[in-house]
């Protein structure tokens, strides 16, 4: 009877519009995946528990969707009432029957030559509102597609791709706005976070992540270095509706590994920004890595948790940062509460009482090379962590790699690489990775499962007591969230470059993950539950 009710409900909603109310309350409809990180708190946690520690070993492949391209398939699909919407490499996009994997429509944007995408022709997914889907493109446009047809509704240019401006992230819907942040830290762009009207595509506000002359923070850049300062904003942020604040992380200053021409802290690179959702005005910022020399973008998902902190209820922001520290901030004001290393860190001794790193002398890149941990790709990267309210643990896919950083003074050429260094894995040191379960309230590591190489797949936790993760060897794995024991794994044939999602249709729970050029979806065999 209960199952019947769910079936009727789902059928009734088929094709229903995604409203702000639904996104705000996304946790209450776990059959869907309505926004990049699942909810505005960005826990990437599903309350579905049909697949659980007792039966995960029976998981079986249900369908495979081929995107039509190889390369890194980094999308987080959205699922709305039985239809799965995803983006692919080279700004492909598709809508699928979420039960069968059959395509309802496909779209591919025609892209110009010579796009400067540092790290692949990737896209990390859609945002949805009303009957529209929003995609930010490799040629720096923001566009709306009709969710029933894939037809283009509007298309606006945010910046000039010739200069190295690129979008790779999934937008975030806040109220009537489509929020996006630019990529291009390898090309000396000027970073920004933009808000566009979901209705018309008109730009409503822009927050520039590198302050211009006369603006606070401009003094943190030597000379004209701000003009090519980078500080991109290339990963989807989080939102607190009660505070009306958007939390958006930023990336490295340019050139990323050569700092002699940009002395100063280089605000707002490698920072967490708290922006007023209506105006884009900066409420507070916290800079994790001032004057970065190792490409430690802070573009990792900010996880919002309300919890007791030393006996006092606080609104927390938790981030496992690429620089190797796990941070806890007060998200009402940006106050630093704690920061503990969750990986090997040799560039800083520790963090001060205010969260500023106390640098290890001699850790800057030199002519002949300096050995530093984490390496340039970080202790973690853009792929998602997951916060499980049942275990109160943060699951972080982590790299074990140190690099030799070699300084290289470099002249800026518009639209060209502007990195200022060569970094290579340190000779004679084996690189690897791990799925780590961290207690954000103590900084303690509860368990870890070793991966053979640095991972690019994120984590999903579920009310079934599971954590799903994927490694660069192509293994998709279900762990027991409390112990880290592997309950199930499947070889998908290519490196995993995304983070899993879960949804349900007609009372049946599914888990999806891209690998190689394909999207794989698993469930328990029919009748197994």
């Amino acid at each position, binding site marked *: 009877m209960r199952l019947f009710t769910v079936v009727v409900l789902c059928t009734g909603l088929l094709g229903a519009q995604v409203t702000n109310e639904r996104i705000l309350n996304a946790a209450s409809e776990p059959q869907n995946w309505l926004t990049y990180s699942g909810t505005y708190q960005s826990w990437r946690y599903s309350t579905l528990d049909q697949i659980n520690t007792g039966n995960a070993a029976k998981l079986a492949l249900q369908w495979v969707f081929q995107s039509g391209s190889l390369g890194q398939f980094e999308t987080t699909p959205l699922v709305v009432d039985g239809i799965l919407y995803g983006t692919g490499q080279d700004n492909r996009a598709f809508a699928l029957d979420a039960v069968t994997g059959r395509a309802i429509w496909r779209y591919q944007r025609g892209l110009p030559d010579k796009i400067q995408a540092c790290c692949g022709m990737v896209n990390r997914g859609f945002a949805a509102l009303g009957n529209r889907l929003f995609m930010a493109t490799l040629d720096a446009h923001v566009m709306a597609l009709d969710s029933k047809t894939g037809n283009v509704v509007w298309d606006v240019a945010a910046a000039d791709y010739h200069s190295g401006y690129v979008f790779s992230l999934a937008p975030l819907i806040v109220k009537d706005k489509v929020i996006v942040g630019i990529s291009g830290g390898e090309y000396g762009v000027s970073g920004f976070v933009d808000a566009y009207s979901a209705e018309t595509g008109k730009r409503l506000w822009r927050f520039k992540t590198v302050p211009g002359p006369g603006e606070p923070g401009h003094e943190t850049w030597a000379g004209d270095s701000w003009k090519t300062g980078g500080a991109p904003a290339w990963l989807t942020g989080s939102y607190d509706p009660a505070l009306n604040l958007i939390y958006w992380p930023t990336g490295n200053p340019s050139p990323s590994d050569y700092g002699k021409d940009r002395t100063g802290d280089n605000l707002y690179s490698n920072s967490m920004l708290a922006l007023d959702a209506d105006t884009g005005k900066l409420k507070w910022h916290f800079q994790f890595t001032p004057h970065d020399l190792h490409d430690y973008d802070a573009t990792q998902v900010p996880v919002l948790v309300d919890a007791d902190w030393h006996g006092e209820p606080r609104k927390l922001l938790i981030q496992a940062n690429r620089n190797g520290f796990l941070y806890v901030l007060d998200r009402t004001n940006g106050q630093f509460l704690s920061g503990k290393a969750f990986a090997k860190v040799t560039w800083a001794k520790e963090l001060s009482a205010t969260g500023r790193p106390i640098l290890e002398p001699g850790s800057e890149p030199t002519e002949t090379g300096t050995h530093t941990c984490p390496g340039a*790709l970080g202790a973690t990267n853009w792929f998602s962590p997951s916060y499980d309210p049942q275990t109160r643990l943060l699951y972080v896919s982590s790299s074990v790699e140190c690099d030799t950083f070699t300084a290289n003074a470099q002249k800026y050429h518009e639209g060209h690489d502007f990195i200022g260094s060569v970094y290579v894995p340190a000779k004679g040191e084996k690189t690897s990775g791990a799925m780590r379960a961290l207690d954000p309230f103590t900084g303690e590591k509860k368990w870890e499962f070793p991966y053979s190489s640095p991972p*690019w797949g994120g984590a999903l936790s579920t009310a079934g007591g599971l954590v799903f993760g994927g490694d*660069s060897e192509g293994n998709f794995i279900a762990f027991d969230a409390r112990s880290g024991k592997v309950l199930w794994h499947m070889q998908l*044939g290519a490196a995993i470059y995304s983070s899993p999602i879960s949804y349900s249709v007609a009372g049946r729970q599914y888990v999806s993950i891209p690998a190689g050029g394909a999207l794989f979806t698993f469930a328990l065999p029919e009748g197994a539950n």
Partner: protein
Amino acid sequence: MVAICCWPVAYGQQVPASAAAVREGASLFRGNCSPCHGLDGAGGGRGPDLTLGRWIHGGADADIFRTITQGVAGTEMPANSFEDSEVWSLVAYLRSISGVSKPRIGGSIKAGQQLFFGKEKCIACHMVGGQGGHLGPDLSRVGAARSAAYLAESVREPSKELSLGYVDPNNHYGIPLEYDTVLITTRDGRKLKGVAKNEDAFSVQLLDENDQMHLLLKKDLAEVRHEERSLMPAYTLDMLSDSEWRDLLAYLSSLRGESF
């Protein structure tokens, strides 16, 4: 005639080899080429020494331009998408470092070949021209692909910089596996020693010292230990005299893959 007239069209306007072009080329070289060819261009673990003035794929400016932009088929040298002016700066820089060092191997190629196939039994583990063992890297064109200094070190101290093995084309940031010694103990007490052809969190594919392949699940193994050292013996002076070492290097340096 046609080719000569068309060089400027095909390859853009060559910049004069000014000091500024050399500086620009040096910066580009450090940023893009040094991971394989070494910071000073004298060869690294993956690329040949470019300071010798020995241009295997053509030594005219246009040849070097072509090698940089189009790569070299059948080798590890990839195509690169620089602006034409940047390529000419790189050519200017390469000219500035070319000829600064000379190969000082000496030695007899023929005597080295006899050592390789005879007394030292290198052929038992390494393949040349389609013949030989499977355990170590194929050396058919190692003389074209590696610097003499790297080869010299690889014979005396093979563990100093391990050769690279399996490369996963689907792992875009992946680091190739290394030819290091792997020691495995199975749960039923068997011990195996060899190199991992591939490995992940759940399995390992091991080629053992006797050229036998073992396809193993980690759940059946008590231990998988990476020794971070080469399986190849270090040919110290008591095993290989200086003159034999030079002969062997002369032979290895002569291997350019011509038989293919």
